[in-house]
Every structure is written in C-alpha cells, then in structure tokens.
C-alpha cells in the first residue's frame, strides 16, 4: 500500500512538472517569410509571461512557453498575433517542452 502511494505521488509530481513545462502551440496563416517570424517573435516576447518563442514557417507553427506559474490566455495570444497582422487558426496546449518541440522539428527537417 505504501509502495502504491509512493508511486502515485511520484507520478503526480512528474505530471505536474511536465504540465509546467508545457507549450502553447498555434497554427497561424500567412507565415511566409523570415520577417513575418521576426515580427511575431518580437511581439510575443514583449509579454511578461513569455519564456521562449519558436516559429516554424514550414509547419505554419508558432509556439510559446511561459514562465513557471504564468500563463497567457488564448484571447491575448489571438490578439497579439492579429495585431501583428496574422490569423490564428488553432491554439493547443501540449505537454511537450518547447525545446523538445524544437528538436523534433529539426529532426523532421533533416
């Protein structure tokens, strides 16, 4: 019983860490050049909650990781990208870290 409890606590802790290290992934229309990506990155990094930003033209993807304990509401993300001149088609919160996503994309393109 104690063993099961210990496993449960460990799994819960691991899940919590993964959730905190999650990434907000957005599908964006209109991403066709490096200057587009630069403008979006600059816009998102101005948000105090942003920890890291990843833009992939190939995947029409904009990903944001937030600082620990912080979040950016979907409405704020949509407004930021709309104000930057682009159209957000979907927003998804995933458990993979932005570094893992970056590595995954790099591996895909090799």
């Amino acid at each position, binding site marked *: 019983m104690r063993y099961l409890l210990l496993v449960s606590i460990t799994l819960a802790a691991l899940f919590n860490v993964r959730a905190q290290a999650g990434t907000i992934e957005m599908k964006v*229309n*209109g991403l*066709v*050049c*490096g*200057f*587009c*990506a*630069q*403008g*979006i*990155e*600059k*816009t998102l990094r*101005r948000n105090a909650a942003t920890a890291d930003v990843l*833009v*992939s*033209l*190939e995947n*029409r993807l904009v990903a944001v990781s937030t600082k620990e304990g912080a979040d950016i509401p979907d409405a704020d993300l949509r407004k930021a990208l709309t*104000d*930057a*001149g*682009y*159209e957000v*088609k979907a927003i998804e919160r995933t458990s993979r870290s932005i570094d893992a996503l970056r590595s995954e994309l790099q591996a895909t*393109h090799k």
Partner: protein
Amino acid sequence: MALRNGCVMATMTCLGAIAVTTAHAKPIAFAHGTTVMGEYGAGTMVEVQAFYAPTYRYSIGGGHLSLQSDLTDDTRDITYARLNYLAKRWNREAAQANIFMWGSIGRAHISQAGDRPTDNQFAWNVGGQADYETRRLYASFRTDLHEAHAYSHRIDTLQLGFAPYPHDYQTLATWFVVQGRNYTGGIYDGIEWAGLLRFFKRNAWLEAGLTLDGKVQAMLMFNF
C-alpha cells in the same frame, strides 16, 4: 526644354534603378518594427531610408535620395517624409497577399550644369503595390507617381520571384527575381528587364543584380 527633358530622363533612370532594388521590399515590415535601408543604384543613385511601424497597418519615416544624372552633370537631392499604409491583407495557409499605398512630401534640391541656376522645389509622390507571396513564389505589381515642378512621371513595375528551396526562420533565404518595368511620359520606350539575386536571414537582407545593360543594383536592409 531639351535640358529639362534630359533632367527628367536622368531622374527617371535613377528612380527606375531605385525601383529595381526596392520594389520587393514591403514598406511595412511588422508592428513596432524599425526598418533601415541603404541603396546603391547603377552609379547614379544613393538612398537611405528609415521607417517605424507603430502597427502592422502603417509606417512613418523619411529618407534622402541623391541622384547624379547619367546624361549631364545635373544632380538632385530629395529629402522627404513618407506615410505607408497597408490597405488590405489576405492571410492564407501557406500564402500572403497585400495591398499597400503610400504618399510622401519633401524638398528637391536641383543642381544644374553650366550657368543654369540651382533650384529648390516642393516634391511629392503617391504609389501603391499589390503582392502575393508563398515560400517559393513571389509576384508584385507596383506603381509610383512622382511630381514636382520640374518633373512628372509614373513607373509601373512587375516582379516575379522564385526561391530554389523553401527557407525557414533560421535558414538563409535565396531568391531569383525577374523584373519588367514600364515608364510613362515618353521617358523610356519599351520595358526594361533586370535580374536580381536576393538573400535574407532573420533581420538582414542583401540584394544585388544587373540590368540587361549591365548596370549594378544593390540594397542592404535591416529590420529590428
């Protein structure tokens, strides 16, 4: 009259050279972005520009254009303030299309060869651009009307670009561009063609090429 026509022709030649190097660049890079450009055109033109975009819809700024006539010793130095406006944008899954408009006012200092007097004139310009872009293809049509007491002309420019590979944010972008340009006002008969090679990565842009008569065009641009 012949002199004036010569000056106008030289201006057209120089402004045409500018169009070769600038027509691909969008007048608004991104919201809260600053764009700085320096251009060298065919040994007759040097131009610097700086714009700031408070939103993605418009940018404001100015520039200075120095022109040296190919035909005479006449020179023109035009300093101007400009407003660029994005009238419409279409964002598609893997493409973007835009319609831009702009207008500028400024002062043209005209220095003429021989014993002809120098002159300072009010100058203005209106223009527009429609473009369509994917990561492999680019097409744009641009029209520019330039007016001052000493000159009046319009330049229409069609550009088609092809990228040999699709670039991404962190990789070098390479483009081959072909341009056809038509002049109004009896300045140039026919269409002038040019080939350009363009590279850009992150916030830096370098472009160079030749017209069919072998004149060098070059441009350097930074966005930050």
